[in-house]
């Protein structure tokens, strides 16, 4: 659709800009402010320049949290995307069970995140939780409150439980939009089921899969509530991801300077990723 140029369109956009800017720009300005200043209370501030940035970028605490975050995001992407696609592929296109399945699958997505954390907490407790008790009954010593590996595995399992359905729903919608004629032509061409997946289904799902990967990357990179409620970031700090660490510093210790600097670095990394994905996606659509 060719669009006419009309500067009056700004009038339509102003309410949105005002509301979002209020929430985005003012806090960001505050954060920038804090990131370059030092305060000893009583609202007295001293210019510190890039000291906080240096401190954060050089702190091993930040490095560790960042690496933990990367490990977490990488792992869940490797599990959730293929699993989501596989489930979507195995679901029928039509029929009475389809909406039942979709509704049940969508349920985890609408549970408040703290309840997700609490639910898995109760579920995985070694003495009274169904999962915890069952694993220990099989002879494996499992206690996610004390063992780092168990904590990691439980956190990842929780995220897979929570968010894979998003990938399923997106992939399923993408699959359903493929016209029947493609499958019919593939039959006539004698294509194998793998060929059909690799040459028809996957390429046609590219758009929705990009969105799925983008969303899961972003959301998992910003994850806070669920792991916080499940493990509190522990045992120790073994499951302290970036957001959890940041909130500890900002709201826990009220270390405004370092918190602000870390916030900006964090936000910048996320934005960079977002920009890369966005460009790739837009380039795809223009083709």
């Amino acid at each position: 659709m060719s669009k006419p140029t009309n500067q009056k369109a700004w009038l339509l956009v102003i309410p949105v800009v005002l509301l979002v800017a209020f929430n985005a720009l003012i806090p960001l300005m505050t954060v920038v402010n804090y990131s370059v200043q030092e305060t000893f209370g009583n609202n007295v501030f001293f210019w510190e320049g890039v000291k906080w940035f240096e401190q954060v970028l050089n702190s091993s605490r930040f490095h560790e949290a960042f690496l933990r975050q990367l490990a977490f995001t990488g792992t869940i992407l490797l599990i959730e995307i293929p699993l989501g696609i596989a489930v979507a592929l195995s679901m029928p296109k039509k029929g009475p069970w389809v909406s039942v399945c979709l509704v049940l699958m969508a349920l985890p997505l609408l549970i408040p995140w703290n309840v997700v954390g609490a639910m898995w907490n109760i579920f995985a407790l070694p003495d009274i939780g169904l999962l915890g008790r069952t694993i220990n009954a099989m002879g494996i010593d499992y206690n996610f409150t004390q063992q780092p590996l168990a904590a990691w595995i439980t956190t990842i399992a929780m995220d897979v439980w929570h968010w894979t359905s998003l990938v399923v729903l997106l992939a399923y919608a993408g699959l359903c939009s493929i016209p029947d004629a493609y499958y019919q032509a593939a039959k006539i061409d004698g294509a194998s089921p793998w060929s059909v997946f690799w040459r028809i289904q996957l390429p046609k799902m590219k758009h929705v899969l990009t969105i799925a990967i983008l969303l899961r990357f972003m959301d998992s990179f910003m994850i806070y509530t669920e792991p916080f409620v499940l493990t509190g970031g522990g045992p120790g700090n073994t499951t302290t991801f970036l957001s959890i660490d940041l909130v500890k510093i900002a709201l826990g210790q009220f270390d405004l300077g370092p918190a602000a600097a870390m916030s900006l670095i964090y936000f910048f990394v996320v934005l960079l990723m977002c920009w890369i994905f966005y460009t790739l996606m837009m380039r795809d659509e223009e083709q």
Partner: protein
Amino acid sequence: MRLKSWLLPTIYIFFLMLPIYWLLNMSFKTTNEILGTFSLFPINFTFENYIKIFTDPTWYNGYLNSITYVVMNTVISVTVALPAAYAFSRYRFLGDKHLFFWLLTNRMAPPAVFALPFFQLYSAVELFDTHLAVALAHCLFNIPLAVWILEGFMSGVPKELDETAFLDGYSFPRFFIRIFIPTIVAGIGVAAFFTFMYSWVELLLAKTLTSVSAKPIAATMTRTASTAGYELGLLAAAGTLTIVPGAFVIYWVRNYIAKGFAMGRV
């Protein structure tokens, strides 16, 4: 339908239902029973946890507060997103691509970054501990989402519709309300669903911006866990009840879920 093909979705759904079942199981037990014995079904089936929640204002207010700010946010987000999405869909204007991108970046903003600044901002404008504060704060990521979804749906409506209406003498507001909106009702449904969802589940900001009067159910639940010790049965019942609104909403829009995701603009 080959049997093998059903195996994966069935196992997957079973996996999904397991923790929910466990939560439900615990919600009908007393905390003593939970800590004392391990059973797949309550030995002494009790409603006392639910009764406590429905009768104690500290608890049910939590739900009311949550629903209030979520609905407020959905209404605000979708209402302002509609004209903006129209502008993006129909016109080119100075900075439009950059503006759109900037909006999307806010969807990607880590709430942790905004926790403290929001706390200070909303305290400064004296909105701390109000439903409006949370409703407005959630606009940060929900408005861009709503604009994105609505723009997608609007682009599917041919421009000829607008042109015909203007030729027929409709003023813009009348055209928008009486002609345009009915054609994108599905899109509005999808946008409303996702804004509801993301506001309902978000809790860091909701907790940060409230203390007593507008406290969401999440905050009440965490308080229970720490101060009164582990009142697990109560916690489980509270948790179960938070799943209910979500289940309703999904069921209600189940036909639109596929359409919304098909837009590929979640």
